[in-house]
């Protein structure tokens, strides 16, 4: 079922903006805020996972080979992963 992003009218607003559906923030794709995106050079990556730990959005995950990727639906392009990556495997590029 396609869900509405916003209630169309004030009459549809739940009292107190209560949200009865768990994890509803997931439907709000914050990737649109991004100006730059991180890219990984896996020849330099040592799979330490620092990027994964520091990502404030929690949008970085480990792939099947143990390397890391950002979910661009949510990545806001803040560059914290780039800043923290001490083997310098991450670069920020214009999106």
């Amino acid at each position, binding site marked *: 079922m396609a869900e509405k992003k916003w209630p169309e009218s004030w009459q549809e*607003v739940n009292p*107190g*903006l209560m949200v009865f559906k768990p994890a509803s923030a997931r439907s709000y794709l914050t990737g649109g805020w991004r100006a730059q995106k991180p890219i990984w050079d896996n020849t330099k990556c040592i799979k330490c996972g620092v990027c994964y730990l520091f990502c404030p959005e929690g949008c970085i995950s480990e792939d099947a080979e143990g390397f890391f990727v950002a979910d661009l639906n949510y990545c806001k392009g803040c560059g914290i992963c780039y800043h923290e990556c001490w083997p310098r495997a991450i670069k920020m590029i214009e999106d």
Partner: protein
Amino acid sequence: MSKRVGLEIALAVAEAAAMCRPDVIAAYPITPNTHIPEHLAEIVAEGHLDCEFLPVESEHSALSACAGASAAGARVYTATSSQGLLYMYEIVPIIPAMRLPIVMSLGNRAISGPINIWNDHSDVMSVRDLGWISMFAANGQEAVDMTIQAFKIAEDHRVMLPVLCNLDGFQLTHVVEAIMMPDQEEVDKFLPPRKPYGAVHPDNVVSMGTLGLPEIYTEARKAQDEAIINSKKVILEVWKDFEKMFGRKYESIESYQTKDADVIMLTMGSMFETATMAVDQLRKEGFKAGLLNMKLFRPFPADELKAAVKGARVLIVIDRAFMMGGVAAPVCAEVKSVLYDEPVRPAIVNEIIGLGGRDVRIRDFVEMFKKSATADKVKPERAYEFYGVRSSS
């Protein structure tokens, strides 16, 4: 069966609150409301009430704890005054925005400075626009009754808003009065346990206090405004139920001798009873004096006001607070706004009286009345006056 008792009003309010069986009370004592949480702490400590009493370290924490408890589905009560309310201020607008039905007794006291612990309405006026339903007791009986009514109004699913029960500091909180105290059985019958609309619980997923981005903030605020406007229907319903059960009548605006009155005074809170005696005296002197008392301040009883002043030449609005640099005192500014569109309306005079606990006497009402009785013919010099202010010229 209700029993007639002689009791300090703050203690009576505490006992009324206890009879409403709150699950959680979080409060910090501050003059003049102190005896309310103090007595409730006693009631809980003695084992007469099964309730979590949180003796918090500040008013900010008190209302925060109340918010959490109410969100978890508890029936919640608190009390404060003046600076305590201001210390709560950050949380005050969040309670109605989250639609949490908390009941708070406000022992009305002047706000600093100069520092002053005595009565006026400047504390409640600082939160009047934040979404709380607001009622004013004229005496101890009303303070007790309103406490009980407040829970029923607040927790109704058509309302789900917090209620402020205003009682004048000292003039009411510290006065011993004869009060008909309902018994537990009656209160239980009138006020069933709270059934929360949504309650935070591991088995019951709900997010409260969510972010409102620009795309939804206006709609959320409009919905909240509609909720408080529509609460009046429930307030009147609850007052009807209360009258049926306890025999005491409540209305948004109470009138005294207004039927043929051509000059009407309007008060809020404990001044009303003093003013009735002034009206009696003025009637004896041949004046057609009348008196109105606003029991309900939020939502503002606009229609009732229009009806109540019909036929009057002059309306004297007596405020116990003022708006610095404003155009009139708070109650009068709204009264003027309500009556502006009326084709026929009385001349309106605004007197500010009783600030910081200065006594308001019968003869003050008589004097205000006589001074302004011809305001429809001779316009007062100023939009509002500080009645009785000492002046060197």
